[in-house]
């Protein structure tokens, strides 16, 4: 798998800084992401993971630093730009609109168009058909394409969101803590999906708190801490415990391990 890293990186984040008023959320972070690899972004709460990927996907403009996409410097003014460049993102909670149907959610922002008398209409038949197919492929059997997303479980929603991103030909798929609210079965489902996506030569950026989830699918691991990167490690170059230590900062964990039996 590591052979992929020898390719040209699809996206390079160079020395990204992001300030919110007086809060310094990112203090110079550089990360390269390669096609076909799953790049895990780890770090504690407030480390700046979400902020980092939001600059990557055009939600935030970096205060300082450069984004190079497929070799060319890019300036994303809003998420649409990033999406049309091929960067799809599944956000922490805000993936779906509960009151809307699955099909409409699936195609939200990328609605298929059918021209009747030159007027562009929403192609409902196509949208419904594609949605049903894609969902079945992901293992979700909908009652119908008109079923509201509000009736799906959390894992099902994450799966829909990932399926959507892949379907629209993303070259980079960013997932912000897709597994944090999920049960074992649904987590496996999401991890398996990531694995599948990666094999289609798509770059995956996977944010998680869970070292084991990261190790299950990750090719490379970047740990963020308080707005700075602690470096990137290749798969196989790092043990779970080292990664855990890197995320938490050593001593403290040792202290806890004593009383809790080392199984955190």
């Amino acid at each position, binding site marked *: 798998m590591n052979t992929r890293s020898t390719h040209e990186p699809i996206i390079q984040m160079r020395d990204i800084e992001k300030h919110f008023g007086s809060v310094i959320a990112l203090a110079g972070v550089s990360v390269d992401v390669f096609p076909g690899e799953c790049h895990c972004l780890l770090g504690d709460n407030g480390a700046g993971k979400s902020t980092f990927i939001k600059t990557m*996907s055009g*939600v935030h403009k970096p205060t300082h630093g450069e984004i190079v996409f497929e070799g060319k410097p890019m300036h994303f003014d*809003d*998420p*649409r730009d990033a*999406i*049309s460049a091929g960067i799809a*993102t599944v*956000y922490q909670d*805000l*993936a*779906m*609109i*509960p*009151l*809307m149907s699955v099909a*409409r959610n699936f*195609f*939200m*922002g*990328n*609605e298929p*168009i059918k021209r009747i008398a030159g007027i*562009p*209409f*929403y192609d*409902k038949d196509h949208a419904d058909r594609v949605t049903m197919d894609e969902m*079945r*492929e992901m*293992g*979700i*059997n909908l*009652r119908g394409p008109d*079923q*509201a997303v*509000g*009736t799906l*479980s959390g894992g*099902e929603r994450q799966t829909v969101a990932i399926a*959507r991103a892949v379907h629209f030909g993303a070259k980079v798929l960013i997932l912000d803590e897709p597994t944090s609210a999920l049960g074992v*079965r649904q987590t496996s*489902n999401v991890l398996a999906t990531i694995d599948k996506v990666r094999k289609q030569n798509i770059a995956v950026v996977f944010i998680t708190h869970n070292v084991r989830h990261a190790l299950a699918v990750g090719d490379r691991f970047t740990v963020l801490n308080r707005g700075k990167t602690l470096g990137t490690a290749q798969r196989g170059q790092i043990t779970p415990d080292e990664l855990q230590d890197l995320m938490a900062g050593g001593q403290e964990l040792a202290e806890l391990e004593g009383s809790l039996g080392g199984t955190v």
Partner: protein
Amino acid sequence: MSETAQVTDLSDERIKEMSALRRALIRPELGGMVGTVAVFTFFLLFAYDSGMFNAQGVLNWSIVSAQFMIIAVGACLLMIAGEFDLSVGSMIGFAGMMIAIFSVTLGWPTWLAIILSFAMCITIGAINGFIVIRTGLPSFIVTLASLFILRGFTIYFPQTIERKTIIGGIRDVAEGDWLAPIFGGKIGQPVFQWLGDVGVIDTFERGTRQGQPVVDGIPMLIVWAIVLVIFGHVLLTKTRFGNWIFAAGGDAQAARYVGVPVNRVKILMFMFTAFCATVFATCQVMEFGSAGADRGLLKEFEAIIAVVIGGALLTGGYGSVIGAALGALIFGVVQQGLFFAGVESSLFRVFLGVILLFAVILNTYIRRMITGER
């Protein structure tokens, strides 16, 4: 994979299946439909021979309903997009007054006055939207402010310029104008003449128009209402932009993240609402020939009520233009029907309140069934 699929299947087994009939019935418009049927049944029983259902009577409540529909379409789309506009009523007064001032006081051609008023009002709508978007304030507050500001100017301008709060004589200056008939004219006169001749419709018995049918055409107001309802319905359900409207109201942040231009959608909907209000005002001014500072009072509530009776969710993301149109129809029929039925007019408000309450409760129930909301 089949394994996972099976699991999800099981998951559905924990929920009772819905019959096909029930599923076909359960649509956002259901509440509006039930209400419409109930209202018509009621008045057919209690006001059948009062003239409510002769040609003239039908035209009467149709016009009133059409008026509500015009503003309800705008309010409905805006509400689905997650905002609302309390300045609709003031905008109606303002737009009419501007047309009057431009065309009568300043003596400009009517078409120019109309176009300028549209431009001004749509701009004001855009400003409303822009402030909402930029400050993140609730639209309730922002448009409440414009309610007062616009009404203030609507009284101030004519009073300073003309020393009265009503400006008349617009019909005279609009004579021969090419744009005015699109708002104030009628269509279908030959058909109605024929209907009158064969006796389906009563004819005038005396005066200059003796022999002409009492209903001599369909006012453009009704045409505008129908056109706007169809436009709104198609836009909402059949286009990409319609999907964006739902998305913007359902969860603006989520929509923004997948690339829906939420700000643009919302501002456009504020502009569309202003457009609808201006259509209302222009039709009124062109039909009646005068603009008054009190025009449109409380119309913002009437629009919101019609939309809510029609099944839209006050907080956005859910609703239907057809439903809103039915809500407007119910509103208009009840308002005029109570007159036909001879009910004391002050009780109209009581009825309205009660209908509103029942309609939203019914709609909430229907919506929960549709969306599986808890």
